[in-house]
């Protein structure tokens, strides 16, 4: 007996109600609130728009079908980012997530999306220099505004390791930005206007 033949006899709504921790309206609100930040994160992390889309969709499906996802909105958001990070990590498990030389951490990216990223200017090029973990750390800390404890939860690292890792990533990115003459308009960099 084939799986899809049996699946066709099961009402979709019944299956969803049995398996999903949230209803369609709740999911739509959660999705609207998180899809852009998540895709921004995954796009920066993977440097591949198509892959980011696939990973984002897969992450939402995993969250929906999870046995016991967090009920608190903030924790659910972090859970989503964690699932997405793990999916990315699985995808590039052989590409040395933890870093190394630039060549070692340069994941295969589709050329169109990579070109689009580079056209965005120096910030995209600077992010390309960083390891995936450094990109993830910086994005979660300074775009998502997460605390060290939350970053540790998303990336599966110890809380105490976040500060030195973040420090090194930040120092490296700042050095690259300065080397490219990046000027944060209206900010405080001593060398900028």
């Amino acid at each position, binding site marked *: 007996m084939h*799986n899809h033949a049996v699946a066709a006899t099961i009402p979709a709504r019944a*299956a969803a109600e049995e398996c999903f921790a949230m209803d369609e309206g709740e*999911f739509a609100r959660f999705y609207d609130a998180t899809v852009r930040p998540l895709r*921004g994160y995954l796009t920066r992390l993977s440097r591949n728009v198509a892959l980011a889309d696939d990973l984002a969709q897969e992450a939402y499906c995993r969250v929906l079908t999870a046995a016991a996802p967090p009920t608190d909105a903030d924790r659910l958001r972090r859970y989503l980012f964690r699932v997405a990070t793990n999916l990315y990590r699985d995808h590039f498990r052989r590409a040395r997530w933890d870093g190394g030389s630039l060549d070692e951490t340069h994941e295969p990216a589709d050329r169109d999306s990579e070109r689009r990223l580079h056209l965005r200017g120096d910030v995209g090029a600077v992010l390309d220099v960083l390891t995936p973990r450094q990109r993830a750390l910086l994005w979660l800390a*300074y*775009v998502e505004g997460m605390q060290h404890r939350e970053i540790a939860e998303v990336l599966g690292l110890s809380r105490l390791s976040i500060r030195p890792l973040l420090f090194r990533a930040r120092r490296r990115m700042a050095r690259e930005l300065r080397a490219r003459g*990046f000027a944060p308009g209206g900010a405080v960099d001593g060398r900028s206007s």
Partner: protein
Amino acid sequence: MMRWRCASESDTARAARAGAWPEALRTHAAECRVCRDVALVATALDRERRQWSADLLPASAGHIWWVAQLRARHAAAERALRPIRVMTLVAIAASAPVAAGALASALSTVASWLPDLRIVSAIAGIGGYATLPAVTVAASAALAFLLLALTGPFTRADG
């Protein structure tokens, strides 16, 4: 020794994201190396975020919901079929000795016919006496494999 942290680090990151700098924080950040880096990086990343969030066209929530529903249905089907698959395997395992006994009995019956068959074979001119048991065993094995394949254990769960 290089400083790793500054007490104003979080405030500096928030100010950089918001683009609003209190004068005291601006003065501090201009002198503090940690906060200067934080401001530079946070501003650059925020600029990057703004560029990207403007032209993202994400798939609809309804599409994701539909995909997840399909998966839930297949998972439910898999759960529903699991007992049937288990019982099929148990039935095959339980009937294997019976089938083996029946096969052995059939072979012995065939062996008792062999003198007659030898006569028939000799008449037909094919001299098949020596090869007949092997053909019988091969045919029985093929029949058993076909039955197993049709009853499920060798069919894929995803069709």
